Every structure is written in C-alpha cells, then in structure tokens.
C-alpha cells in the first residue's frame, strides 16, 4: 500500500497530505524516543501524540506517516510543521492497535 490509500480507507481521514510513499510496516508507540529508536523507515506510526515533537520524530526517523489515533488532538503548530516538512498525518478514531490492524490488513501484511 501507499500513503495515498488512506484517503479511501474507512475510519481514516488525511489531515496533512503529502507526496505518496510506500507503507511497509506499522509501529505503535507514544513515547517519542521509543518511536525514534524503533519505528522502521516507511512505517505507519500509530500514536496519540499530535505535537510538533512527534512531527520532528516522524520526519527524522523517516516514517511513512503519522497515524493520529483515538481522535487525539493535532496541534496547529504541528499541522504547520508537518506540511512544511512533508510529513503526512492521517487521523482516525480507532485506538492504535485497531488502526494498526486495519492498515496491516489493507497492506497485506497479515
């Protein structure tokens, strides 16, 4: 799957669009240094952290997208920074585990 697919997936809405990239895996964590150290490049990163620091981590760890779960708040400055740095942000009301399962199913990872 690619990040373009999120637009068609039920339960997901694209909050910050960006250049299409492959989604190779799913990683779930909220503490930033765990995500920084363990999220693989090209992962869909499922988290409830919607602040500028999460955007910085997503950018530097080179994940495919932030999947902001549980309808968690997306800070306005985070939205701006994501657009500026080319970080894709997708929102969902699903908890991180369910979001991860939905993405993995869509991507044929299960």
């Amino acid at each position: 799957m690619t990040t373009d697919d999120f637009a068609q997936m039920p339960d997901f809405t694209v909050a910050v669009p960006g250049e299409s990239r492959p989604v190779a895996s799913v990683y779930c964590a909220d503490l930033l240094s765990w995500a920084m150290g363990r999220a693989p490049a090209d992962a869909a990163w499922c988290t409830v952290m919607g602040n500028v620091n999460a955007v910085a981590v997503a950018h530097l760890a080179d994940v495919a997208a932030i999947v902001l779960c549980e309808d968690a708040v997306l800070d306005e400055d985070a939205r701006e920074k994501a657009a500026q740095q080319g970080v894709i942000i997708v929102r969902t009301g699903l908890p991180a585990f369910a979001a991860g399962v939905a993405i993995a199913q869509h991507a044929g990872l299960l």
Partner: protein
Amino acid sequence: MPNIHMHYVVPGDDFTRAGEASADLKARLKKLGMPSDAVRKVAIALYEGEINLAIHAGGGEIEVQVFPDKVEMTLTDTGPGIPDIDLAMRAGWSTAPDEVRSLGFGAGMGLPNMKNYADDFEIESEVGVGTRVFMRVNVA
C-alpha cells in the same frame, strides 16, 4: 562529497525549536546525495542529543564535520552534568520533569538510541561543569 563543517547553537527549554539542527543537517546530507540509511542514522542520533541539550542542559552547541566516509558530531553543554553515566545510559532511566514527559519525552531511551545508531559513541560529563558527547556515523 565535499568536507563540510556545521555549527549549531541549541536554545535551552525551547522544545518546539529543538530539532531544527537535526532537520537542517538531514536536509543538507540528503542534498549531498548521502545514502538514506546513513542520513537516517545521523538524524536520529543527533535529534536525541539535541533534545537532551534543550531539556537537560539549558541548551548547548553542536559541531558537525561531514567527510566522504563519515559524519562526526560533537555536542557540548555547560549544564548540570551527569552524576552517574552508567545509570544515565541505561534504557528507561530518566530525570525528565513532568512537563516534558507530557510532550512525549522522558522514556529514558535517548542516550541508548544515540549509542545504538552511532558507530562510535563517547560521553564525558562532570557535575557542575557540563557534558560532551561525540558521535561518529560511518557512511557505507
């Protein structure tokens, strides 16, 4: 790839700006055509160090030397220093205050990540004087 020298000043306690040096270096290395896995290692290791300067040391400075085959980064601060480096290096150990924990920091994984992503990692610290971290990432 030409040799490049970069100098960054990291402000203390500004967690929205912390990360700018790492993002700037990442963009430069990408532009130079450095392989993306090496760029990623540099970006991750430097971000953790940059954030530590902002959170734990009241700011500091970063020196970067880019060579064709390696990137060397030295982070120095005149913050409180680290009383027990072995303890600080332990995964999960953190003295991060509650207000930065609520931002998602404080897992106690920053220094372990730096050691893990850098091919060479050295840290020295003196209480009341400051801390110096050296990291080298090899470019395959």
